[in-house]
C-alpha cells in the first residue's frame, strides 16, 4: 500500500486518464456555464442563449473565445505574481479533486484492466478535504493581490465562509464514515453497489448538511457572499479580466461539478444504476453504463444547485455565520452522535 509504487505503463495509463478526465471536466464545465444560463432562463420563462449553433450549443465556446480575446489588465498597484497565481490556484485546486473520484467500474482495454479512477488512495475523503481546503487560497490570494478594498473584503469573507462550513462538512462526513468504515471512495461506492442501500438512506441528515456546506464551499447562491454584487461590486475578481477572470468563473463551476460527483458517490451510489445487474452485460459496457449513470447524477445535482440559485435569495453575512456555527455544526454533531448511538445499539 504505497503511493510511490509505480511502473511506466502505469504512469502513462494514469496520465492519459488524467488528461481525459481533466479535459472532460473542462468540457462539462463549459457546458455547465451554458447550462446555468439555460436553466436560469427556463426557470424565468425565457429561452436563454440560443443563437450560437443549434440551440445555442456553441455559446460556451463563444464565451470562452470572448474571454480569451479580452484585454489583459493587471493593475499597477497589485502584487503582480500573486495576481497571476491566484486564478491558477483556484483552478488547480478545483480540478485536483477529480483524482479520487471513481468514475465507473474497471475498463478492460488492450489486455489491461484500467480503473476509471486516477488514484484509489485509502484516504480518498481526506484527500478531498485537503484539496477543498486549498481552494480558498486562490480566492484569498487573488483578492489580496488586487489591492482593492472590495476584493480584499470579499476574499476575507470567502475565507471565513470556507473555514466555517468546512467544519460542519467534515462532521457530516465523519458520520458517514462511521457507517461505511472506510475512507476510500472506491470502497464506499462498491459497498453501495453491492446490493446495499445507498448511503442516503442511512445518512439523510448528513446529506442535507453536506449539501448545504458544499453549496457554501462553492460560493453558490444563497451563499455567494464573496461576490455579492450589491455590496462588494464584483467580489474578489473585481480587478480581473480576460482569461484570469475566466479561470475564477470556471473554477466555481468545476467545484460545483466535483462536489456533485462527490455527493453522488458518497450518498447516491456513485456509478450504481439501481435495478440493473451489471454482470448481464460485458464489463466494458457496464463501465460505460456506470459512467453514464454517474454523469446523470452529476447533472441532476448540478441542476439542483442551479435551481436553488435561482430560487433562494442571498443570505446576510451574520445570517450566514449563524447558520454555519449555530445551526450546521450542532446539527452535524447531533447527527454524528445519533449515528454513533445507532451503530452501538446495533452491535
Amino acid at each position, binding site marked *: 500500500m504505497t503511493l510511490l509504487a509505480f511502473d511506466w505503463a502505469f504512469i502513462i495509463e494514469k496520465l492519459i486518464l488524467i488528461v481525459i478526465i481533466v479535459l472532460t471536466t473542462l468540457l462539462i464545465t463549459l457546458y455547465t456555464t451554458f447550462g446555468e444560463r439555460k436553466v436560469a432562463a427556463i426557470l424565468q420563462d425565457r429561452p436563454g442563449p440560443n443563437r450560437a449553433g443549434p440551440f445555442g450549443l456553441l455559446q460556451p465556446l463563444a464565451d470562452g473565445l470572448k474571454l480569451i480575446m479580452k484585454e489583459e489588465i493587471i493593475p499597477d498597484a497589485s*502584487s503582480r505574481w500573486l495576481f497571476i497565481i491566484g486564478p491558477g490556484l483556484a483552478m488547480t485546486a478545483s480540478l485536483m479533486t477529480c483524482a479520487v473520484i471513481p468514475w465507473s467500474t474497471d475498463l478492460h482495454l488492450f489486455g489491461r484492466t484500467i480503473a476509471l479512477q486516477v488514484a484509489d488512495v485509502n484516504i480518498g475523503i481526506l484527500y478531498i478535504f485537503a484539496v477543498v*481546503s486549498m481552494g480558498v487560497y486562490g480566492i*484569498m*490570494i487573488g483578492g489580496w493581490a488586487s489591492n482593492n478594498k472590495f476584493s480584499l473584503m470579499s*476574499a*476575507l469573507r470567502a475565507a471565513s465562509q*470556507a473555514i466555517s462550513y*468546512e467544519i460542519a462538512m467534515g462532521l457530516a462526513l465523519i458520520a458517514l464514515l462511521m457507517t461505511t468504515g472506510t475512507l476510500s471512495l472506491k470502497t464506499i461506492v462498491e459497498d453501495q453497489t453491492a446490493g446495499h442501500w445507498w448511503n442516503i438512506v442511512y445518512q439523510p441528515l448528513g446529506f442535507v448538511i453536506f449539501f448545504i456546506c458544499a453549496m457554501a464551499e462553492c460560493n453558490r447562491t444563497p451563499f455567494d457572499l464573496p461576490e455579492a454584487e450589491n455590496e462588494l461590486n464584483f467580489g474578489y475578481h473585481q480587478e480581473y479580466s480576460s482569461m484570469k477572470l475566466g479561470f475564477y468563473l470556471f473554477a466555481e463551476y468545476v467545484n460545483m461539478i466535483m462536489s456533485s460527483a462527490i455527493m453522488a458517490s458518497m450518498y447516491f451510489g456513485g456509478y450504481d444504476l439501481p435495478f440493473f445487474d451489471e454482470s448481464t452485460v460485458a464489463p466494458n459496457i457496464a463501465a460505460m453504463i456506470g459512467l453514464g449513470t454517474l454523469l446523470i447524477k452529476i447533472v441532476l445535482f448540478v441542476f439542483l444547485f442551479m435551481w436553488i440559485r435561482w430560487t433562494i435569495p442571498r443570505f446576510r453575512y451574520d445570517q450566514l455565520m449563524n447558520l454555519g456555527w449555530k445551526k450546521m455544526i450542532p446539527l452535524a454533531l447531533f447527527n454524528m452522535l445519533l449515528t454513533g448511538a445507532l451503530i452501538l445499539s446495533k452491535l
Partner: protein
Amino acid sequence: MNVLEIIFYALSAFALVCAIMVLISKNPIHSVLWLILVFFAISGHYILLNAQFLAIVNIIVYAGAIMVLFLFVIMLINVKKDSEPQKQLFVKFTGVIAGGSFLTLFISLVKQAMPLVGKTVPLKEGTIGLIHPLGKALFNDYVVPFEISSVLFLSAMVGAVLIGKK
C-alpha cells in the same frame, strides 16, 4: 542515486529554500505562501516515508486550516510590508549566528551519536503510516490522550470566545 533519493534531495532542498524565503520575505503574505510551500514539501516527505495519513493531515491541518487563519489575520489587520521597521543589522546578525551555532552544535552532537550510525529509514515501504494501523493504535493504546486532547480543544474554544467577544 535512485529515484527516491532524488526525490528526497529535491524535496529537502525545496523545503529549505522555501523556509529561508519565509525568513527573508519582507511581505508577511509572501512569508505565509512560502511557508505553505514548506508544508507541501514536508507532506511530500511524509509520502516518501509512506506516512500517507500524516501527509494528508498535514495538508489539511497546516496548509488548509492553520495557514488560512494566518493569511486571514494578516489580511484582516492588513500588515503592509513597510510596517515592520527593520531591526538593526547586528540583531539580525546575532540571530543568524545564534541559529547557526544551534545547528552546528546539534549536528556535531548527532554526528557523535554512535547508535545512529548505520541506521536507515526505509523509504516508501512499511505499513505503519497507513490509516488502519494508525487508527488501531490511536483508539487502543492512545485512547486516553485522544480523549484528553478534547479538553485542550475545549479550553482553546472557551479561550478564543473569551478573547474574541466584545
